[in-house]
């Protein structure tokens, strides 16, 4: 039983926190947002230089063999600094598919570019009516010769505009909500038949809606078993959920810190408003919520390694519920305690609130995961 970081992990935390303190103040972030695709190539290069983009890949694949705790550390730091760069889409999710199921050839084709920062990925999964069900897939991949032809529409694909490679879920067999017959395909973003409509998201990131019209890919595009990929998708999305939990913890830490600093300095009636008990109690409740979230983020990080897939899914669903509830409370109350200034675009705090809000609605919201835990027979 040990919740502390080891020496290497502490150094990792220091180095990424240091990097982001230097290059990610609020004004710089505004500039990065205006670059193509909504993030900074220069910052991405720095993350690559520090080895952060290769962190979770095995040494054999050119990475550093980091585990869940290392990803947790990075995601927390990215949350704290409100980072726009596509770490989740590229390293956690895209990289996740390659780590868990990529062939040697697929890894050789994609991993070096991820690690050196020259290539990014995006996960094209969400469909118009699929909501949070990963098995609800209408996009089709039909066999043609050795390869596949992909047709369908995907929505809110994070990093969709800049990504070099799209990781696409598509149905190879069966009907829309069948749990079997789903495959995962690596599709070059510039493949013929891929059209993208890009836009900024509410939290300042960029996404794209992507249409696939008769997009032809080779046999080597399929990651894992193209007729039975749901377990793989669930595995990688679970890792993404865990990463989002950690990002949210970073966001909550910074929101609470910023808010407490604000109420210590903001004066009304001749005193700092933080001297009022009603505000102190609210801030204390935010602390409790953030600590409960941190506990569950750690739990989820460990759950990634549970051998029993059902137990793993249940634990991560529970964590996502806790994070969702805590994030909503900490986010909303951060705005409330800032008062009018919290409503303005120019104050930092509102942007934390917006990112926290979007995290709740990514890969299953609180109700969705609570239902999963409830239907699984409980947690105790």
């Amino acid at each position, binding site marked *: 039983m040990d919740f502390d970081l080891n020496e290497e992990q502490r150094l990792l935390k220091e180095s990424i926190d240091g990097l982001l303190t230097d290059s990610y103040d609020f004004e710089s972030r505004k500039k990065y947002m205006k670059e193509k695709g909504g993030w900074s190539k220069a910052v991405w290069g720095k993350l690559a230089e520090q080895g952060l983009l290769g962190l979770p890949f095995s040494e054999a694949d050119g990475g550093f063999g980091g585990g869940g705790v290392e990803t947790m550390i990075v995601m927390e730091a990215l949350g704290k600094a409100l980072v726009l760069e596509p770490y989740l889409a590229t390293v956690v999710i895209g990289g996740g598919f390659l780590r868990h199921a990529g062939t040697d050839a697929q890894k050789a084709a994609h991993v070096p570019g991820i690690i050196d920062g020259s290539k990014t990925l995006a996960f094209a999964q969400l469909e118009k009516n699929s909501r949070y069900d990963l098995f609800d897939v209408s996009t089709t991949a039909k066999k043609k010769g050795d390869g596949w032809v992909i047709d369908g529409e995907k929505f809110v694909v994070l990093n969709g505009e800049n990504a070099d490679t799209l990781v696409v879920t598509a149905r190879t067999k069966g009907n829309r909500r069948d749990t079997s017959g789903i495959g995962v395909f690596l599709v070059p973003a510039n493949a013929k038949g891929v059209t993208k409509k890009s836009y900024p998201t509410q939290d300042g990131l960029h996404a794209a809606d992507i249409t696939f019209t008769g997009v032809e890919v080779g046999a080597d595009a399929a990651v894992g078993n193209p007729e039975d990929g749901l377990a793989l998708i669930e595995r990688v999305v679970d890792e993404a959920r865990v990463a989002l939990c950690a990002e949210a913890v970073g966001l909550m830490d910074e929101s609470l810190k910023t808010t407490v600093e604000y109420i210590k300095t903001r004066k009304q009636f001749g005193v700092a408003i933080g001297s009022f008990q009603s505000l102190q109690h609210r801030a204390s409740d935010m602390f409790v919520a953030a600590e*409960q979230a941190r*506990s569950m983020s750690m739990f989820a990080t460990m759950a990634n390694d549970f051998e029993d897939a059902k137990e793993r899914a249940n634990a991560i669903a529970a964590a996502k519920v*806790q994070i969702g509830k805590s994030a909503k409370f900490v986010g909303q109350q951060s705005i409330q305690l800032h008062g009018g200034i919290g409503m303005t675009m120019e104050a930092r705090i509102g942007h934390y609130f917006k990112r926290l809000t979007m995290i709740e609605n990514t890969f299953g919201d609180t109700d969705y995961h609570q239902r999963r*835990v409830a239907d699984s027979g409980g*947690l105790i």
Partner: protein
Amino acid sequence: MDLAFTKEEQAFREEVRSFFRDNVPPDTRRKLVEGRHLTKDEMVTWWRILNKKGWGVSHWPKQYGGTGWTSVQHYIFNEELQSYPAPQPLAFGVSMVGPVIYTFGNEEQKKKYLPRIANVDDWWCQGFSEPGSGSDLASLKTKAERKGDKWIINGQKTWTTLAQHADMIFCLCRTDASAKKQMGISFIVFPMKSKGVTVRPIQTIDGGHEVNEVFFDDVEVPYENLIGEENKGWDYAKFLLGNERTGIARVGVSKERLRRIRDLAGKVESGGKPIIQDSAFREKLAACEIELKALELTQLRVVADEGKHGKGKPNPASSVLKIKGSEIQQTTTELLMEVIGPFAAPYDVHGDDGSNEAMDWTAQIAPSYFNNRKVSIYGGSNEIQRNIIAKAVLGL
């Protein structure tokens, strides 16, 4: 980071669990499951079984009968004890006055009191709260005046838990009226059968009798019953309250109750089918389980931190444990109320002998719900805990 228990710790859990299985009197367990009050005999019988095993004062230093367990072992022991469930050791003796005596008392006091605390030869109660001082404890007025080799004590204590069973009381008394309010308080112990001590029961909204008013009318106490130094009582009280946090979250208690809820919800029908099949209820239950899981992890973080860095100063995280722990306990009693629905109403007309199986299981659910409103009030109300977090953690 490694959240797994070691093989040794898992074996320890098994050892503890099987000891409870073999040694907790079944009727005692049943009463706890049903939320009933135990008799003095039932409690003392169990504590002596525990003490005979060497686990009566597990967290005390070894020289006074403690076990030398690690923080994690204590955690496991507490969790198993609470979730079996078995009666927890009498906090007033074991967790409160005992540590004050072995830390600040003289050799004679240690010899005289500690073994009797461990075996519950003396049942102790706590004389802290007064009618005028609840959360503002330091405003207490009970006076101890020195007269030769005696103290003369006058005043009133209240909310004195199980004073009706008590042989001894430890009391915060004002011994210097001129000093600043925290500075003039002393920690004095004396027998409840001393002349001038009167105990008057307070009936709580659940109909139970747990707490009392205790009156002191010219009670004569030997001077040597002072623990530690005169006028340092406030420091000892703070020390004592800091020790209270072991198991304050009561994760095991809530776990046991959630298991009971799931069990009952599989039997009680609503709309012609077990209420557990109702998705709204099931989700509420899941929500509570998730909160409890998070709390369990938060508690383990505190436990691991103590194990690594020593206990040191009271950890403000214990305020998180108190707030969330009490909220969850209250939610579990609400869920039980929801499960039994209209059968919450009958008063306990059947007695508690277990003879009427058809109805007895519902009899204590409403009282237990009423009774559990106390958990966010006692031990420093949740509002006081929020003050502590605001000051000690957030620097507000």
